């Protein structure tokens, strides 16, 4: 099992960190938050064109980099770590799924998605019915990056369907987490094409979101610990007080647990679907690991960001400080992934623990 970056992944991570240092400055993030689209267009263009980040998972034969799920995870982590306002995570997931698809539509859309001229977004919270001609009618809410999307992926039963945005009425929604826009959709007999399996899509979505949560939690713990080392009260750094140290230690253990869960899920998700029998096979299936990673990582992210505010004291409660951005991202991710109760029940069922 690979728990650590390969040299290629490490190089990618380094490149992304220099990219985000340049683009994801607090000023740029704030400006994008206040903008109409909620996206940093310059950063989006640069990561699509200069870095070719969206083509990571696209086969080389179609003009992509031919990398895999683990590399996309690295990108999602590094962009999520700084809350870079872009539809990368949504669109990269769509690219991953369409790259696995044999549908002609996938082939048609991939080049545009891979160079960033098209944007894709999954719509998980949908209330739709299928017409006799296979078209979809109804609504979908909480579609992350919905306003930017040219194509939507929608789960209907076991099928994953693709719908072009041109056939959908898209309404942007104001969001609690202003670094990640959402929209609602209205479909009226919108043509839909089957491009894959909904279970695979949901699993990959959860793992990517879990990875993003992990990176956010790591960042917030780092920032908090750094603050405790420098902030002085009672004549000494407050990080020397055991009450605060122990809380940080507990957070560090939680983050380590989340890291283990995410790494295992990424490793399993990145295995070829029909792995060669001699290849290492996971003891626990992706069907259990994906909700597990989502549950553990989003819970950890939420807890770390709450503690981040508390341990920073008054400054952590200000609009100016970055803590609230992560706090809101964490809770939004957790709520969008589904309740702890539902995820636990699913894990229990898949792992055969519950009747």
């Amino acid at each position, binding site marked *: 099992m690979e728990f650590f970056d390969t040299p290629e992944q490490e190089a990618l991570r380094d490149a992304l960190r220099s990219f985000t240092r340049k683009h994801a400055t607090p000023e740029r993030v704030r400006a994008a938050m206040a903008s109409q689209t909620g996206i940093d267009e310059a950063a989006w263009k640069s990561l699509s064109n200069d870095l070719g980040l969206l083509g990571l998972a696209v086969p080389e034969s179609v003009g992509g980099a031919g990398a895999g799920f683990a590399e996309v995870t690295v990108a999602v982590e590094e962009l999520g770590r700084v809350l870079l306002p872009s539809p990368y995570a949504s669109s990269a997931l769509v690219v991953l799924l369409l790259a696995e698809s044999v549908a002609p539509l996938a082939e048609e859309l991939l080049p545009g998605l891979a160079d960033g001229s098209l944007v894709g977004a999954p719509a998980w919270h949908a209330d739709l019915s299928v017409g006799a001609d296979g078209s979809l009618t109804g609504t979908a809410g909480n579609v992350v990056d919905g306003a930017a999307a040219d194509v939507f992926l929608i789960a209907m039963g076991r099928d994953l369907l693709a719908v072009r945005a041109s056939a959908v009425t898209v309404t942007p929604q104001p969001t609690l987490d202003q670094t990640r826009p959402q929209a609602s959709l209205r479909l009226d007999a919108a043509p839909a094409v089957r491009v894959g399996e909904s279970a695979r899509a949901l699993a990959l979505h959860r793992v990517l979101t879990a990875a993003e949560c992990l990176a956010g939690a790591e960042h917030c713990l780092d920032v908090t610990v750094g603050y405790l080392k420098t902030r002085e009260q009672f004549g000494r750094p407050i990080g020397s007080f055991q009450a*605060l*140290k122990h809380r940080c*230690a507990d957070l560090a253990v939680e983050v380590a647990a989340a890291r283990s*869960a995410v790494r295992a899920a990424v490793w399993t998700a990145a295995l070829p679907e029909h792995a060669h029998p001699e290849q290492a096979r996971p003891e626990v299936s992706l069907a259990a690991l994906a909700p597990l990673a989502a549950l553990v990582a989003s819970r950890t992210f939420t807890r770390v960001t709450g503690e981040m505010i508390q341990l920073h004291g008054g400054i952590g409660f200000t609009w100016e400080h970055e803590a609230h951005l992560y706090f809101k991202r964490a809770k939004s991710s957790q709520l969008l992934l589904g309740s702890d109760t539902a995820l636990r029940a699913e894990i*229990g069922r898949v792992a055969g623990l519950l009747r």
Partner: protein
Amino acid sequence: MSVPDAEAFRAEVRDWLATNLTGEFATLVGRGGPGREHEFVEERIAWERRLGEGGWIGLGWSEEDGGRGLPWSHQVIFYEEYARAGAPGRAGHVGEQLLGPTLIMFGSSEQKQRYLPGILSGAEMWCQGYSEPGAGSDLAAVKTRAELRDGQWHVDGQKVWTSLAQFADWCFVLARTDAAAERHHGLSYLLVPMRQPGVDVRPIVQLTGTSEFNEVFFDDVRAAAQDIVGAPGDGWQVAMGTLAVERGVSTFGQQMGFRQEFEAVLAAAHANGAIDDPQLAARLVEAWIGLQVMHWTALATLGARLGAGPGNAPGTEANVAKLMWASWHRDLGELAVDVGGPEATLTGPDYDLTDAQRLFLFTRSDTIYGGSNEIQRNVIAERLLGLPREAR
């Protein structure tokens, strides 16, 4: 010796256990684990000798040191299969897991020649003389004294929480040899024979009603002049080396045991209907999640030390892992009796505890021994996160 194929090795371990965990040893299945260290000790010592004959002790030690030089992946396989077979808790683990690696790291070649074979054959049992009534988390406060007179060390003092002391042939003792030195200085690491006048072992009755641990009193007890590991005054460094190796590859056997305990609790919940209580069901799923997380954390920790021998001690990831498993295990203990319900309030005659009750009670020690949760948090905060030391 070449490294055998992993699956062939697994089969070899399985076959050997199936063949040998029979006859006089059949009664040992499931005995002597955590909370049951007091059970069948004599028989388990005989079992250690059988393991030694089979070449199953010191798997990771180099061949030069008498071991088999197997990589950690094979050691994991051994521990997994050992636990899967329900083979008994290791009476020899103090020698194999603690003293042996310490001697390999710090011992002289004479000491290795003298003591490693006895560990590898299961012929000599060891116990650990670290903690004292006044030196628990603050180990550097040990008061046991040793003085070199007439070519011998004379040891006086009291140790506590010493597992299997009444069965041990030897004790490695952290003692103050320089009365003028303070704290971590002036301590020495001595190898003291247990079977001699002046050694008094008194079992401690724990809240389980059983006695795994002992108090050990030393009254002018002797050790040979050469039976000091490291130089006089270097005892602290040597002792810390032992503590670091304490949390090595045996983690996987421990986790296999955890998995079996979890399965038993889950089965009980299905049998008595507790699984239909949503809160208990949620806690069971969380316990299973914890098992997975600990497994991958252990893999990551060991992966980071790939190829590392017993001399390559783990860093703070060991403290993270300890805090994780100790808390998880304690929670499982509470879950076990909660699943049992009112039934779990009744014991057998003579305070004979059920497995669930034993788990519930004994796991209270997990968060205390081998560095309490609080000490682990201090270490994680200071060494992993780099937070400043507390003003003292």
